[in-house]
């Protein structure tokens, strides 16, 4: 039987108090807390074999390189990718999407081509494509959604044309919690010859993925939403695509040979990893993946479903509360608004009760526009959250309403 209290001990930060009350951390969709295994792995690296990688014959550099490449292999296995060189380290999901837009995008799109994204994308999966459209003259099109936050799949066939070069879609929406039918989208997109980038930033901590069976062309995520460090993330790309793509940034590590006349680029993945990477971050991410595997992603998902179900039932009983995002089978996110109370005020009062949630537009302003809201309050759950904490959340919401509506 999965017991979150046991795992909580692995997260020292959860013992702290905020405004004199035990912290209830429900902002996991923004970033998750880090277990000891991750903190220890980073510290161990710095204490025992801190060195630059791929550059030295000395022992420390060898060990650091092995740990760094070991992390890459852990990520490959976690994503179920066929080849380890399909795993590129980036700063995060955002940089990974920009990399694809600026390298693959600039060489494959021209005026009149189309990029199709969904109505619930994070700004990170909108803006890089808009920039690419500006550069190339391509057009951005959007798959609409309904009032529940479910994509209108019957529109996809109409929106996909022989000019569609790329479909960018999030697996899990950070603003609504919707889990999108990406397998179906990939199938339809491939049928018209379009490539597909799946934004896995919000998904990887909740949903098991497999690159081979999913069949997407690109997949991105950030380490910090998977119990790992900030500043490290991943771009997965199909080997043949990555090989044919021009490099992103120029510098050390991404070259084979440099003369002032001509530079020969290194092979993948190094071609896309110019400069000294976030070595400790990669090692920490590897440790985070080991940690998640030891807990078991299916255990985590089942536990979070239970929390979400309880929270949803409680929410439905609160007068004046409206849940934003009511798709069936949501993942771990409860977005809501309270009548007559701005989400920002909810956030401050909850914080005063020790309850950390996010209030704002969640970097998904088009989603807010769709629901005609300036913002929502969002509670998002992780493996260490408990039913008691759901209770604390709703006690705090009661306090908000008392304060505002009395």
């Amino acid at each position, binding site marked *: 039987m999965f017991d979150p209290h046991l795992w909580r001990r692995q997260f020292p930060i959860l013992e702290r108090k905020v*405004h*004199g009350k035990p912290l209830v951390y429900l902002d996991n969709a923004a970033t998750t807390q880090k277990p000891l295994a991750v903190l220890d792995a980073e510290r161990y690296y710095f204490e025992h074999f801190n060195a630059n990688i791929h550059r030295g014959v000395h022992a420390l550099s060898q060990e650091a390189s092995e740990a760094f490449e070991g992390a890459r292999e852990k990520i490959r296995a976690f994503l179920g990718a066929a080849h380890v060189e399909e795993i590129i380290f980036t700063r995060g999901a955002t940089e990974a999407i920009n990399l694809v837009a600026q390298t693959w995008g600039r060489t494959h799109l021209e005026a009149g081509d189309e990029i199709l994204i969904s109505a619930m994308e994070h700004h990170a999966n909108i803006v890089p494509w808009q920039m690419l459209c500006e550069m190339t003259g391509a057009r951005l099109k959007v798959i609409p959604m309904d009032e529940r936050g479910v994509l209108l799949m019957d529109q996809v066939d109409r929106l996909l044309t022989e000019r569609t070069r790329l479909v960018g879609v999030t697996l899990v929406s950070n603003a609504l919690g919707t889990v999108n039918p990406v397998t179906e989208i990939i199938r339809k997109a491939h049928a018209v010859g379009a490539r597909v980038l799946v934004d896995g930033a919000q998904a990887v901590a909740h949903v098991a993925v497999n690159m081979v069976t999913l069949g997407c062309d690109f997949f991105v995520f950030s380490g910090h939403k998977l119990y790992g460090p900030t500043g490290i993330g991943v771009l997965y790309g199909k080997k043949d695509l990555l090989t044919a793509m021009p490099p992103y940034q120029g510098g050390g590590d991404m070259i084979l040979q440099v003369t002032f006349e001509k530079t020969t680029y290194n092979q993948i993945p190094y071609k896309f990893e110019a400069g000294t990477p976030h070595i400790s971050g990669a090692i920490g991410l590897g440790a985070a993946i080991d940690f998640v595997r030891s807990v078991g992603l299916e255990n985590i998902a089942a536990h979070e479903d239970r929390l979400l179900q309880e929270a949803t039932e409680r929410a439905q009983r609160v007068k004046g509360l409206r849940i934003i995002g009511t798709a069936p089978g949501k993942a771990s996110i409860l977005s809501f608004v309270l009548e007559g*109370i*701005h*989400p*920002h*005020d909810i956030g*401050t*009062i909850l914080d*005063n009760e020790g309850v950390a949630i996010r*209030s*704002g*537009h969640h970097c998904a*302003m088009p989603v*807010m526009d769709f629901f005609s809201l*300036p*913002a929502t309050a969002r509670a998002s759950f992780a493996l260490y959250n408990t039913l008691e904490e759901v209770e604390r959340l709703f006690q705090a919401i009661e306090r908000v309403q008392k*304060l*505002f509506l009395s």
Partner: protein
Amino acid sequence: MSDLRDLYQEVIFDHNRHPRNFGPLPGANRHADGFNALCGDKLSLNLKVEGGIIQEARFEGSGCAISTASASLMTEALKGRREAEVADLFEGFHRMVKGEPYTVEMGKLAVLAGVSEFPARVKCATLAWHTLNAALHQADQPVSTE
């Protein structure tokens, strides 16, 4: 521990529920839009300035209790003021909500002093003032609190 009641004073609730000077202002000759990118608050401010005196100030938009009350209180405080006074008042207000010493007489605006205990909310309180600044200087771009 910062007390919520220092932030959410009755006057603030009152101005949030019943914002003063809310709505369009026909015949306005100064205008600016303000935007708080962090929380999505939008504010549109209209002024009627004659002979260097602010005759009317009205606002529209949606925001949290702090930004709405701040805009409401600001429009009240502006009426009849000389344009030249506004810079000092803004400066004083800014210092007050950041918890720094200030010398300007704040009058009713002083109810917002509690914001200084809540650094994350300073931007909410100052959105209206940044917008005012833009309106008086006739900036065309919407201002943000960033």
